[in-house]
């Protein structure tokens, strides 16, 4: 295992209507991407409770991505705006908890943006690899 490349743990919360469908399109287009991300489907990006994200980091996630519909395109009218506001606050909270805010990312990916899904996943995975393992893992005894 020692010579194996560092494989980060990344969680992606994808909204059902846009981003999950975008991921499906990336899949059916057979676009290749790194395997580190595990996706969790939610109905709307506004369902993602910031507590879930903090929990993910405290339990060893190296990166967390939330992806939703583009502003103005939310299936539920304005859920993504709520998500955006909450996560702006979350970044502040992360700082006070000694979590690196850049390990968290919010992206807008529509149902037709398969290539964008690949791009976001690839780029974010590279970014997290560059940051190395989440130091919280060593610090907390949770």
């Amino acid at each position, binding site marked *: 295992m020692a010579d194996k490349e560092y494989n980060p743990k990344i969680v992606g919360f994808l909204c059902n209507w846009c981003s999950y469908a975008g991921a499906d399109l990336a899949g059916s287009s057979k676009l290749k991407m790194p395997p580190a991300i595990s996706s969790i489907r939610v109905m709307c990006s506004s*369902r993602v409770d910031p507590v879930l994200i903090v929990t993910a980091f405290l339990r060893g996630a190296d990166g967390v991505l939330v992806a939703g519909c583009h502003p103005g395109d939310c299936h*539920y009218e304005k859920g993504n705006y709520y998500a955006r506001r909450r996560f702006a606050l979350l970044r502040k909270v992360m700082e006070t908890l000694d979590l690196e805010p850049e390990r968290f990312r919010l992206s807008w990916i529509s149902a037709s943006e398969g290539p964008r899904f690949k791009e976001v996943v690839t780029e974010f995975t590279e970014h997290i690899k560059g940051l190395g393992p989440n130091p919280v893992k060593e610090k907390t005894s949770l």
Partner: protein
Amino acid sequence: MEEKIGVYVCECGPNIAEKVDIERVLAAVSSIEGVAVAERYKLLCSEEGKKFLKENIEKHGLTHLVVAACSPKQHELTFMNVCEEAGLNPYLFQLANIREQCAWIIEDKDEATEKAIRYVRAAISRVRYHIPLEKKEIEANPDVLVIGAGVAGIEASLLLASRARKVYLVERESSIGGKVKGFAQLFPRMESASALLEPKIKQVVENKNIELMTESEVEQLLGFFGNFVVTVRKKGGEERELNVGAVVVATGLQEFDVSGLPQYGYGKVDNVYTAGEFERMNSPDGPTQGKVLLKDGRAPRSVAIIHCVGRQEKGYCSRVCCLYSLKLAQYLKSKIPEVQVCQFYSDLCLPGKPYQRFYEETKGKGVDFIRAEKVEISEGEGGVAVNYSSESGRLEVRNFDMVILATAMEPAHGSAKLAEILNIGRGVEGFFIEEHEKLGPVSTSLEGIYIAGCAQGPKGISESIVQAEAAAGKILASLVPGRKLEPEVKVSEISEAFCIGCKTCISVCAYNAITFDELRRISVVNEVLCRGCGNCAAACPSGAARHRHFTFRQIYHELMETLR
């Protein structure tokens, strides 16, 4: 009862089998506590595959089902139906997407297999916390409210009434027919507008299924698709409450007020008219009984028609102005054959089958077309001066007896208020916004409320009729007398014990689905109005709001397994 989870991995022909080591997946999950059986199958969505699953659920007495296959958008419903047939609550099932998210996107088979194992383990971990949900049925009212009795509203009403639906047609004016009622003739065939409209109006008035309410406006709308309660007020006081299942908004448009653009001289220079005013002048029951006259009573010898008045200010093309400008030129040529007509345009918009021919035909009658920018109207020598910048960039002036301004169209006044009453959105231009520009052109963000005609954006009569028919068709297909509606079951609920009455959930709900029970001091979800986004569950500070099938616990356990 003892937990018996069945895990079935679909080979999806070669799609998954070639890219994921299914034996390794099965080995990795079969010893997990609670997993009673873990097997593979060549194609689970096939008829044999569904039969295999059903028999397995029954044979092993499974309490939960996990299928590792394609995207839930492909076959979640397929497998939920299998559960139902096998007597297992369909919500005690979880689909792990190892095709779109593993097999098809990961080059290396080992890596794809490891990710697939993570997904299946996470699905097992989640499904344990699934709670059976029951479908509900509610009565639906097949009657319809149509707001606005222009061509679109009339067409929708007639179509709905022809299928025995009761229609309440609400119009704020004293007569019906909308904008078309004021037209003399219609492009491109130049047929009489009243010949087209009057029979329709007569049909509306005589139709027993249509209740026409003129001089009336909608004041309030409560409820939801299938069960709306609408308050309509008649001018002067009388208020009525109507029960309907769906609403068609066909409130049309109005001419943009050009007096705010002083460069066009409107209201200051004599013999400058808007297209609407000129149209009225041509109408047999208009102010001049259909005669085209200057202010001094003479017939004009030369007329300029200025295109795109207000286009830049409004930020969109009003789509019909080029076409009605051609029509106005034809009015002039047929009434005053020697009149000189000149169209000042910046771009000609002539889409659709008949309109190129209509343009050529109009041009053939001796109508001039001048491409011009920066048009300004002022008092001229013995007439009206049109100052413009020509295609070569030179400033030119030409004098005319009369100028007609082809003004942009904007939403009918009161649209903002109506949008608020109905809780539907408007675009930046102020027109009601459709659910999806291409895929949902007459639906709105609110189920059961449809838009038709120019309320959605400027358009011609034929497109308005198409939308009216589409909206009526949607309603006829979804609200069938005697048939009940099945509302979404994966909605939110609020625990009475945990709710602290802070109303945060109420403030984030886009559907007004949560109300406050003053007596118990708690928030309450109307499960029929709730669309199940889960926003309230994320916002609730006390953990009282719960998003069914996406509870914190369910997501948490999926997440924890993902991070193992």
